[in-house]
């Protein structure tokens, strides 16, 4: 059983609780264990870095240092948390001055940021550590009948200087995983585009236009569902779907699943067990 320090994203503890619930269900089936990092704090959500760059560095040095203390990699299942914590790590790794400043403070809690733990997305762990072959062997209920529109979300791809796993404009990782689960993914422009989440409260009209365009393209391409590795993208594409499509005058709807849910479905768990019935669009 390979163990990981699991970062608890704020949104997965409130609106999208089904993400962590589904991971807990199937983790052992795939030989992995996510050890929840109860002492972790909010990463700053791609906002704290410009409100106060130094607090941003401290908060995330502490999040990573807690994983380092356990000798485990930090695994994240929210794209923005991933990008945010990885960009803090990059800053810390590049500046000895910043590292020693935060470590001086973290000392009081017995923590030290050393840069020894990687910060990875759940999707990457499934592909690189568990392996597509192993996953496909474990599949009990292949997603064979589904035409899936994979929606990567921005912060698992860009900036590539911080993420660096996929080609930021032509990504393949999610397609590969969904393929291993027996699903058929469709090519469409929005797979690498934005959901509009980060401006929902600041420029709502623009955000809804962005979301509507993504939803409409998936629907035009006759996808049965959208799958995303990011709970923020899910919140827009599922929670705001009716509002976005109403604005654009488009009828109909399309279900949106979390990555962790389709893994669970393929491994034989039910939509009730996985929390899929909690979605707004069902």
């Amino acid at each position, binding site marked *: 059983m390979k163990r990981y320090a699991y970062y608890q994203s*704020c*949104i997965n*503890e*409130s*609106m*999208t609780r089904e993400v962590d619930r589904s991971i807990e269900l199937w983790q052992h089936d795939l030989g992995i264990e996510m050890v929840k990092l109860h*002492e*972790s*704090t*909010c990463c*700053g*959500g*791609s*906002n*704290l*870095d*410009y*409100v*106060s*760059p*130094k*607090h941003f560095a*401290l*908060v995330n040095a*502490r999040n990573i240092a807690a994983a380092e203390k356990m000798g485990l990699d930090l695994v994240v299942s929210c794209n923005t948390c991933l990008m945010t914590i990885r960009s803090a790590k990059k800053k810390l790794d590049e500046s000895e001055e910043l590292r020693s*400043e935060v470590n001086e*403070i973290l000392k*009081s*809690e017995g923590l030290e940021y050393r840069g020894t733990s990687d910060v990875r997305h759940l999707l990457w762990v499934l592909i690189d550590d568990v392996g597509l072959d192993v996953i496909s062997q474990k599949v009990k209920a292949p997603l064979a009948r589904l035409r899936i529109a994979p929606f990567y979300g*921005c*912060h698992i791809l*860009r*900036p*590539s200087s911080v993420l660096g796993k996929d080609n*930021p*404009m*032509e990504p393949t990782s999610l397609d590969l995983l969904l393929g291993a689960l027996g699903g058929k993914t469709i*090519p469409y422009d929005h797979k690498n*585009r*934005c959901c*509009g989440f*980060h*401006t929902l*409260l*600041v*420029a*709502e*009209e*623009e*955000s809804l*236009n*962005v979301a509507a*365009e993504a939803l409409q393209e998936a629907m035009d391409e006759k996808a049965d569902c959208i799958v995303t590795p990011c709970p923020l993208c899910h919140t827009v594409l599922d*929670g*705001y779907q009716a*509002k976005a499509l109403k604005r654009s005058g488009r009828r109909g709807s399309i279900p949106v699943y979390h990555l962790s849910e389709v893994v669970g479905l393929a491994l034989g768990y039910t939509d009730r067990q996985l929390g899929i*019935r*909690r*979605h*707004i669009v069902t």
Partner: protein
Amino acid sequence: MSDSTIQHHEDSRDVTFRVHRFNPQVDSKPYFDDYTIRLEKGITVLRALNYIKEHVDASLTFRAFCQAGICGSCAMRINNMSKLACTTQVWDELEKSREPDIIKVEPLRNLPLIKDLVVEMDPLVDKMKSYSNWVDSKMSEENWGKKEFLVSEAEFLKYDKATDCILCASCVSECTILRANREYVSPAVLLKSYRMNVDSRDSIHEQRLAGLVKDHGVWDCTHCYRCQESCVKHIPIMDAIHGIREDAIAERGTKDTSGARHAEAFMEDIEKKGKLVEATLPIRTNGVVWTMKNLLPMAFKMVLKRRTPPPPPLVKSTKDIEKFRAEFKEMTGHVAKDHAKKPGE
């Protein structure tokens, strides 16, 4: 080795350019023309387009000038990505093509189309003007030509990368928010504004910043990083956008715009609980009236699905919150000292 790999190693091959065509004087809507030509390895997309114009179809219209990645005129969308035709190798693009041997060529997005691959650049120039994107000198006119400014290397490094911008508008074409609303300031303009606002020779920093925080300004950026990823000069454009936001919060506080209030809420919550209190985020960002009007119908659906974020008292503080708070406070002390050391920054 697969057939396609063998082909990619060939020195010469037939390549089809699927080019966007539109002449507003005769066409009711845009269409694509396919031009198949035999090309040698090492040729750029621009040279291929020049060949097509000279030997196949003289009516094909595009902009180009320096052919060396300096002037920025030949930016276009090649295989769904905005870039310079003159620095893009045909052989590299063939690796990325969705259909074998076909390279798709389209005009930049988010700017009005004039003809085929040519777009109108005036909206970008107009925005540069409306945000006063030039150095408005601090020096009085009578001293011009007599005195000089001394710019430290440390200051120059702040805008060194931003000055690499060649105004090709690739970032403008890829911008998510501009696509959703043409009024949006755009990444190229924000980059230039940042560059001017960190220049110590400039006298209109406050006025420019006041413009940038208005509607359709710096707070509307949705952090998708497409601008930065498409920048042909590899400029970290998001650092500039974040730089303006940092400056706006430092100079204007956190209460004057919804964007600043939204950002501040993260800081407050982390300091208090270590966790974000999502339930009150809309109210803290936009007030009660906006929240009732915009989010109430959705809130009902969320309650039915038990999807609502927990009310503030039920948001559990992170483990060891007292220790964390002490650390956070200590860093606040460091930040205050930094500000005292560098007045005005």
